[in-house]
């Protein structure tokens, strides 16, 4: 059965390019433009096998989203990868502390991204 991924990023080109790349490799992909919209989708019942999120977004950033998801019932063990331009080491550490599964710095090549996703998503 195809695995589901949710991409959270305020950049439309970023969202669409990653979505296309993952769909070509057999994944079902949902998108959200910021942390608030992502949380709303989760609360309506979407249970992705992986969340990929940017850090610097309006309304709710990636670090806050990670924190919220990890406290949401039933979503604690959903792996979360960050895909961001953020280079601040302290933010990387904070992401790790909050429970992120990995930290990816843009730009990441399509094959590398798919490789990491397959490593992180069980059964992919």
């Amino acid at each position, binding site marked *: 059965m195809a695995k589901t991924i949710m991409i959270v990023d305020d950049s439309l*080109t970023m969202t669409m390019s990653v979505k296309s790349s993952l769909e070509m490799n057999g994944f079902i992909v949902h998108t959200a433009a910021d942390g608030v919209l992502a949380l709303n989708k989760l609360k309506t019942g979407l249970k992705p096998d992986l969340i990929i999120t940017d850090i610097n977004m309006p309304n709710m950033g990636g670090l806050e989203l990670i924190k919220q998801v990890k406290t949401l019932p039933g979503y604690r063990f959903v792996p979360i990868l960050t895909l961001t331009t953020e280079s601040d080491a302290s933010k990387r550490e904070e992401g790790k502390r909050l429970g992120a599964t990995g930290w990816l710095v843009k730009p990441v090549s399509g094959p590398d*991204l798919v490789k990491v996703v397959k490593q992180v998503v069980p059964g992919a």
Partner: protein
Amino acid sequence: MSQFVHSPWGRRVLESSLTACGSIALVYWVAPYWTRSPDATGLEYAAVAALTLLLASVLRELVRPAVQRLVKVQEQTTPAGCIPVEKAAEELRHVAPYLDVLAGQLKGSVQDTEDGVMNVIKIVDSVYQVSGHQLQRIRASEENGAALSSVVEEKIQVDQQLGSILEMFVANQEKDVEVNLSRLKRLQEVKSLTPLVDVISQVARQTNFLAINAAIEAARAGESGRGFAVVAAEIRVLSNRTAEVAVDIAKRINAATEGIDTELQSVVTHADRHSASGNMRKVLDDINEMQARFAEGSASLLAIVEGVRTGHMEIVDKLSEALGQIQFHDVIRQRIEQVQNAMHELNAHLQSVADQMHDKPWDADSLVSLKQRLEQQVSRYVMASQHSAHSTAMGATAMVSDGLPKIELF
């Protein structure tokens, strides 16, 4: 303030204000009794007023040159030929729309590149769809080919079994034909008995003649020849009987051999031992050849399908790589947005400077210097490349990278 001072009515107001203040102050100091006492009479107030007016006219003559000297000092602080301060302030105010235009151009550039990138993504998606459809068509062809191959193989196997059975049948038929031929040939040999039957008939006839002769001699012999006559009569009977039997045998031989020649010829003509089995072998050979060609064709088709499948996966990899490269757009967008924010800050700073040059009093504490603003920019950078560009522009050693891995799993 400068504008106020340089205007004619502004100078007059200034002169009048200074004159009035000075007069009142002098009168207050010179005539304390008259200005402070509640018992002062109208004549005393009139005297004070006259004195005030007299002092004002004197003071005006003194203040006017001072105001003129003040205006001249202000004019003298601006070197000859350089832009006046108010003009400089006006120019600074025009920076805002200028920067707005630049910010708009940058925003438009970001939008144009975003539109271009979205088009590229759509094209990439369509290429993937085309490749996917090709793969599906080839897979469908492969399935059809496999089904057809399976049917043909079954058919070939059945035909081969049938061929084997027919071959056996043909072989048996040939054997039967051989047996029949030999039987017919043996039957033909019966015909060779016919001359013998003629001989028997001839012998019977001659025996009959001898018997007749014997009867005649017996008759001539009289009584002594009576016994011989009986024998001769018996011999004649035997010879007649033999002749009849010979005729009968001849008839039977003819009956038996009648049509043998025609049948033999017919059997020989139709029993071409090479024709039937030869055709059957040809059919079997054709079937085997067809099977071999089909196997070869199936192998070729499988190789083509595998090639298309491999090609499709290569296309997917390359398209994924291209889509990954598109992420540069997001990086550039963020850097341009940071420049736009810096331009807005620059504009706010210049407007603040323009205000303090012309309308508002100078307040060094409230004005954040451009140098400080530039330092604050650093705290807003998120990318190592931004830090690097800043350091390079400031003449410091550029940081090549932050040393952290681009991909890190925790």
